[in-house]
C-alpha cells in the first residue's frame, strides 16, 4: 500500500516536473526572440580605462541618461532601447574587434562611435563595408580621407574641421589693434593635436603671420618648462597649443612659472574644460583663450540642456567622472538624439533611409539645432573661443557661474569681451 502510494506520488511528481520543465523550455524558446524583437540595440566602444577614460566614462553616463529618457518616452519604433558597449581601453587596436563583435555576435541594430579621433578612425572600415549609419563623437577631420556619406560627427567643428577648429582663436587675435605679427605653434605628437596644429599652421600662413616656433612633443613629456622657455626666447605675439589633458596642465603651470609673456595664449588645449583640471589650476587659467563647446553663459541656454545636466550631475555622483559635465556630455547625449529622431521620423531601421534623412534635415538637440554638411561635420562651425576671466579660487562652484568662461567667438554666441593681452 505504502509502496503503491509512493509510486503514484512519484509519478505525479515526475509528471508535474516534466510539465513545468516543458512550460519553462517553451517560455525560454519563445522568450528569447521575443526579447530580441522588443529592443533596439545600439552598440559602441568607449574609453572606460586608459588616457581618455575620464571623458569616455562621462560620455557613457550621458548616453545612459539618453537611453533612460528615450525609454521613458516610449523608446524607438515602439521598442525599448538597449545600449551594448565595451571598453576599448583607449587603445585603437581594440576598436575593430569590438565593432566586429557588436555586429556579428551581439547583433546590434545600430552602432555609434566611441570618444575621440584616434578611436573613431579604426571603426570606419567596418562601418563603411556594411553601409551603416555612423554617428560619431568628437572626431577631428576623421572623414577627410574616407568621404563616407553616412558619417555624422556631433562635435561642432564645422565643415572644414581642420581650420574651423582654430578660426576663433585667430579671429579674436586679429581684431586687436595692432594685430599680432608672430606666432608659436606647439602640440602633442598624436592624432588630434597634430590636426589642430596643422589647421592653425594653415591659417597662420594665410594671415601672413610669421611662425617663430613650430614643434611637437612626445605625449609623455612630464615637464614643459624647457618648451615654454624656448617659446619665450622667441617672443611670439601668439602661442597656439594643441595638447591633451596632462600636457595642458603642464603647459599652463610652466607658462605661469616661467612668466610667459605673449598677447594671446591657448587655442586647442584639451582638458582645460574638465572640472578636475579647472579646479586644480584655478586662477592660473585667467587670460587663457581656448576652445570649448558649451559653457554656462546666458547665450548658450539651449532647450533641454540644463535638465540634461541636472540628470547627468546626479548620475555622475561618486562615479569618479567630471561632476559638471559641460564639455563632452551634452554632445554624447545629442548624437544619440540625432540618431533617435531620425529613426522615429523615418519609422525605419534601414540605414540608407536614416542616413539620407540625417543628411537632409536638422535636429533640435540639447546642444542646439544641428545640421550636417556633406562631409558629415556640422554645416556651420560652432567651436567656441572662450576666455577664462575673474577666477579667484579653486572651488568647483566658481566654474558653474556665468562670466568665468566668457564666449568671445562666434559673434552669434558672444557673451563678453576679451582681456588682451594675456601677459606683458
Amino acid at each position, binding site marked *: 500500500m505504502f509502496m503503491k502510494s509512493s509510486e503514484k506520488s512519484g509519478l505525479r511528481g515526475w509528471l508535474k516536473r516534466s510539465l513545468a520543465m516543458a512550460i519553462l523550455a517553451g517560455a525560454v524558446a519563445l522568450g528569447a526572440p521575443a526579447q530580441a524583437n522588443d529592443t533596439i540595440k545600439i552598440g559602441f566602444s568607449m574609453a572606460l*580605462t586608459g588616457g581618455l577614460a575620464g571623458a569616455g566614462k562621462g560620455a557613457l553616463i550621458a548616453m545612459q541618461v539618453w537611453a533612460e529618457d528615450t525609454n521613458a518616452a516610449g523608446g524607438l519604433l515602439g521598442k525599448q532601447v538597449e545600449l551594448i558597449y565595451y571598453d576599448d581601453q583607449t587603445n585603437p587596436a581594440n576598436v575593430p574587434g569590438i565593432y566586429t563583435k557588436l555586429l556579428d555576435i551581439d547583433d546590434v541594430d545600430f552602432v555609434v562611435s566611441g570618444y575621440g579621433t584616434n578611436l573613431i578612425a579604426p571603426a570606419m572600415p567596418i562601418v563603411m563595408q556594411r553601409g551603416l549609419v555612423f554617428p560619431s563623437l568628437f572626431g577631428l577631420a576623421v572623414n577627410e580621407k574616407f568621404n563616407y556619406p553616412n558619417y555624422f560627427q556631433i562635435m561642432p567643428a564645422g565643415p572644414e574641421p581642420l581650420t574651423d577648429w582654430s578660426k576663433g582663436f585667430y579671429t579674436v587675435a586679429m581684431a586687436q589693434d595692432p594685430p599680432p605679427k608672430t606666432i608659436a605653434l606647439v602640440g602633442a605628437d598624436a592624432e588630434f593635436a597634430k590636426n589642430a596644429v596643422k589647421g592653425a599652421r594653415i591659417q597662420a600662413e594665410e594671415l601672413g603671420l610669421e611662425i617663430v616656433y613650430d614643434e611637437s612633443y612626445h605625449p609623455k613629456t612630464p615637464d614643459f618648462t624647457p618648451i615654454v*622657455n624656448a617659446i619665450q626666447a622667441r617672443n611670439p605675439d601668439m602661442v597656439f597649443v594643441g595638447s591633451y589633458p596632462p600636457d595642458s596642465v603642464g603647459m599652463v603651470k610652466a607658462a605661469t612659472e616661467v612668466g610667459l609673456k605673449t598677447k594671446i595664449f591657448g587655442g586647442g588645449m584639451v582638458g582645460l574644460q574638465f572640472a578636475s583640471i579647472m579646479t586644480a589650476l584655478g586662477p592660473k587659467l585667467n587670460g587663457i583663450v581656448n576652445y570649448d563647446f558649451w559653457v554656462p553663459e546666458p547665450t548658450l541656454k539651449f532647450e533641454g540642456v540644463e535638465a540634461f545636466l541636472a540628470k547627468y550631475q546626479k548620475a555622475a555622483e561618486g562615479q569618479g567622472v567630471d561632476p559638471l559635465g559641460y564639455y563632452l556630455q551634452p554632445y554624447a547625449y545629442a548624437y544619440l538624439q540625432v540618431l533617435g529622431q531620425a529613426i522615429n521620423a523615418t519609422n525605419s531601421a534601414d540605414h540608407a533611409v536614416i542616413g539620407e534623412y540625417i543628411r537632409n534635415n536638422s535636429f533640435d538637440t540639447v546642444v542646439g539645432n544641428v545640421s550636417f554638411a556633406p562631409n558629415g561635420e556640422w554645416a556651420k562651425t560652432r567651436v567656441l573661443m572662450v576666455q577664462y576671466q575673474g577666477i579667484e579660487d579653486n572651488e568647483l562652484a566658481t566654474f558653474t557661474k556665468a562670466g568665468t568662461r566668457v564666449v568671445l567667438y562666434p559673434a552669434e554666441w558672444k557673451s563678453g569681451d576679451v582681456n588682451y593681452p594675456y601677459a606683458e
Partner: protein
Amino acid sequence: MFTVDLLFNALIAGVLLGGFYAAVSLGLTVSFGQLNIVNIAHPAFVILGSYIAYMCNSLWGLDPILTGIIFIPVFFLIGAGAYRLYYESFERKDDEALRGLAFFFGVMFIIEVALIMVYGVDFRTVQASYIGQSWKAGGIGVPTRMFVPFCVAIAMFSAVYLYMSRTFNGRAIKAVAQDRLALQLMGADPVKIKQLGFGISIGTAALAGALLIIIIPVEPSVGRLYIGQVFAIAVLAGLGSIPGTLVAGLILGIAESLVSTFFGPSWAPAVAFGILLAALAFRPQGLFGR
C-alpha cells in the same frame, strides 16, 4: 636660437627633471638591479603613492610630500608581503622567470583596476604652496614645483645609499642576488634579506608617487607611460648602483631638456634613448655596473 639664459634654464630644468626621474627609478634599481626581481608593477605602486597623496591632500589638506613620508612604512610592509607571496609561489620553485613576470603584470592590473573602482578615471592633482611658484634671478628661473621634488629625491637617495652602504642588512641586500650561499655563511637569511630589500624598493614608491602628482596630474593608467623610462634609467645606471641611478636620471633629464630647448621637444625621447644605446654599446654593464 641660443642665449646664455636659455642654456642655464635648460640645464636647471634638466637637473630638476633628472632628479625626479631618478626618484621614480630608485625602487626599480633595488628590486631589478640588486634583488634580480623584474618588478614591472613598480610604476603602478608609484601611482598608488600618488593617489594616497591625493587622498590625504584633498581630505585633510596634508602636504603630498609629508604624506609620502608617512606612508613609506606602509608601502614597505606591502612590498615585504608581496615579495613573500612571490617567493612562495615562484622563486622557491625556481619558477620566477616567466610566471614571476606574469605575477607582477597581474599586480599592476589589480592596482590599476582598484584605483579605477575607488577613484574613477578622472585626472587628480594636489594643491601645495610651492606649486606654481618660481624663483627668478634675471632671465633665469627655478620652478619650485620641480625644485622641491628634486630636493626630496636627493634626500631619499642619500638615505637609501647610506643604509645600503653603512649597515649590515644594506650590504646584505646588495650581496643577496650575487651569492646567496656566501650570505648564508655570514649568518643572514637570503629570503628575509630579499624581503627587506623589496620592502625598501616599494617603500620608495610612496614618496616617488607623491613627487609625481606634484609635477603632473595622474589617472590610474598613467604609470604605463613611464615603464620604459624607469627601466632605461635602471639599465643605464648599471643595474643596482644607487649613485648610478641618480647620475643616469640626471643625464636623461639634462639631455631631454637641452634637446627640447635647442632642437625641438619631439627629438627629446629619441636622444635620451640614443644615449642609453650608445652608453650600453661602450659599457654593456651600464655606467656604474661592474
